[in-house]
């Protein structure tokens, strides 16, 4: 059996309603569970970048990437292992404000973990932590015993170590025209 690994798939696309559905259908059709999925406009105006994290074999991620790239509005697809990308996740932790003053230990945890207090009001306060999964998980474990009102974690955001060259691809198209 071929070994499964974490892969970060970066998909550069046009800004199009429904493309999200088209991409997720490619994973659904193959019964692949998506670990995380984020999207935003990238460094080029009107070009969007999806960051999709999956646990797959190398041959599997190659095939899926080709199927994604085949979609008309997809400009280019890359996939990378964890060591080929710089990646982070963000997490928010909402707690009762009383805990901040009654449990002095919490302040040490926040300090040691390099987390940040985003807001404090009489009822609750919110901590933000950006880092690797291990970092946000450790903070979760440390804070859990003091009572978390809410917890949420973002999908992975990532940039690759290698060059992607999307502007060049788009320029080639302009020249051909």
């Amino acid at each position, binding site marked *: 059996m071929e070994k499964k690994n974490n892969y970060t798939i970066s998909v550069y696309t046009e800004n199009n309603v429904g493309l999200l559905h088209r991409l997720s259908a490619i994973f659904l059709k193959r019964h692949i569970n998506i670990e995380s999925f984020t999207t935003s406009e990238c460094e080029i105006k009107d070009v969007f970048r999806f960051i999709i994290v999956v646990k797959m074999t190398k041959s599997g991620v190659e*095939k899926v990437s080709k199927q994604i790239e085949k979609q*008309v*509005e997809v*400009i280019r697809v890359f996939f990378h292992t964890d060591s080929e990308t710089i990646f982070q996740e963000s997490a928010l932790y909402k707690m009762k404000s009383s805990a901040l003053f009654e449990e002095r230990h919490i302040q040490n945890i926040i300090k040691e973990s390099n987390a940040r207090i985003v807001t404090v009001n009489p009822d609750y306060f919110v901590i933000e932590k950006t880092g690797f999964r291990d970092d946000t998980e450790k903070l979760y474990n440390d804070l859990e015993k003091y009572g978390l009102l809410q917890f949420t974690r973002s999908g992975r955001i990532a940039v690759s170590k290698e060059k992607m060259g999307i502007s060049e691809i788009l320029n080639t198209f302009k020249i051909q025209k």
Partner: protein
Amino acid sequence: MKNKKISGAEAVVHSLLNEGVDLIWGYPGGAIMPVYDEFYKFQDKLQHILARHEQGAIHAAQGYARSSGRVGVAIATSGPGATNLVTGIADAQIDSTPVVCITGQVSSHLLGSDAFQETDIIGISMPVTKWNYQITKASEIPEIFAKAFYIAKSGRPGPVLIDITKDAQFELFDFEYSKCKGIRSYNPLPTISNDSIDNASKLINNAKKPLIVWGQGVILGNAEKEFKDFVEKSGIPAAWTILGLSALPTSHDLNVGMVGMHGNYGPNILTNKCDLLIAVGMRFDDRVTGDPKTYASQAKIIHLDIDPAEINKNIIADVPVIGDCKDSLKRITNKIEKKSHSKWISKFDDLMKIEFEKVIKSDLNPLKDGLTMGESIIAINEFTNGDAIIVTDVGQHQMVACRYANFVKSKSNITSGGLGTMGFALPAAMGAKMGALNREVVAVIGDGGYQMTIQELGTIFQLQIPVKIVILNNDFLGMVRQWQQLFFDKRYASTEMVNPDFVAIAKGYYLDSERVKDRKDLKPAVERMIKSKKPYVLEICVEKENNVFPMIPTGASVSDIRLN
């Protein structure tokens, strides 16, 4: 057409005319009525054929596209009209058929409100379309139609769906049309690398026992001549997938028959003996490869395809040649030495002799009284001189027709290959006829599939579309019954059919029709049918429990092909 305000509905018609469309298949309904009103006004320029079911309309558009090489167009209303297209869209997607579907949609202010006949056809059709788009403003129409036709026919062709809200059909705007010349995120024609041509040519020149397997890519790429030149110069035996059939004439010396589950004995066995397999415009479907682990594992593989996603999808290629095969075949042909592989080819001949003795002889010259599907196809060959377009449905008759029909010209074999859509043939045949009016079109259909879209006899009657319809009736869902016999100890669960009087049904539609049961009546009946200038339904009652052989059981290796 500059600077004159017209409605979105009229813009749909002008967009179609700008794309050279003169025939469209469909079915009207509430959400598409403004467009139909324009069809009425433009009927001298754009013929609309009313099918009897939207599935009939889309299969007809597919048949039209396959026989003519043009883009087929189907139109339906929202809701059930749109969902009834889905089977045909999925069929066109998996068989790479260029079709543009237009669906009406509820007004944009009603979207998402579960309005009457509202359905999310964009969401439903997304996984089975090459591209789709919902138009909510009339001003989007020209650009989206131009893109739709460009996407449907360029690169690897496929189905496109445009959903148009009713308010966009009524809205007035300044219409101006320009054809789509390119989309920056879409590269339909990948550049062929010189290295891939060099490497492929080297492998071909050094091969001792090479085998070509070609698919529909040769037909879709209009590369029949380039392919024939390549086959003839290389002297390599060539076998076809079901959708590649007719790209090279049946009688060609180097045509060694069909690969796959019910293909010929020789090319299947020798797939696992060759030292080089050259796959041209085909996608290594599981019905072709059997067990992929043992498939040609001893051979080097060259894979020519326009779609990069097909490379290494099912079978790993040693030399992928990505690009248009019309171009790549020509370049490879220029680089290879002229050869003949007579000793290797004699192996195919030897295996064909075995197949003839064990299978073909009794298929074509049966000793029993009952008629066979094989002799029915041979009778059709005789009176069409192999010059007809044969449209088949799905099942035993399809395999038999593909095995025994003679083909002289390309684009002559039209069948539902990838999706295996029963009910495809009758509507596809009427579409194929409209796409190739000067050619004879013979639909060969089983009694099961025939009854799935039998209502299209109404369309054939109303327009007097002169298709010849042959029902090979064995009163069974024959292929499923065959599997039940071989793999389920003859437990014939729901495969026997008590059929209606097919001749009476045809006559109910005022179509000429007859039934044949005896061998002596077969050829005269086929001759009458072919000579008729009108639509014709011929029911041939064949042996109830005949099987199609050779056969590769599911998941077995191609070299484990059985002759009985």
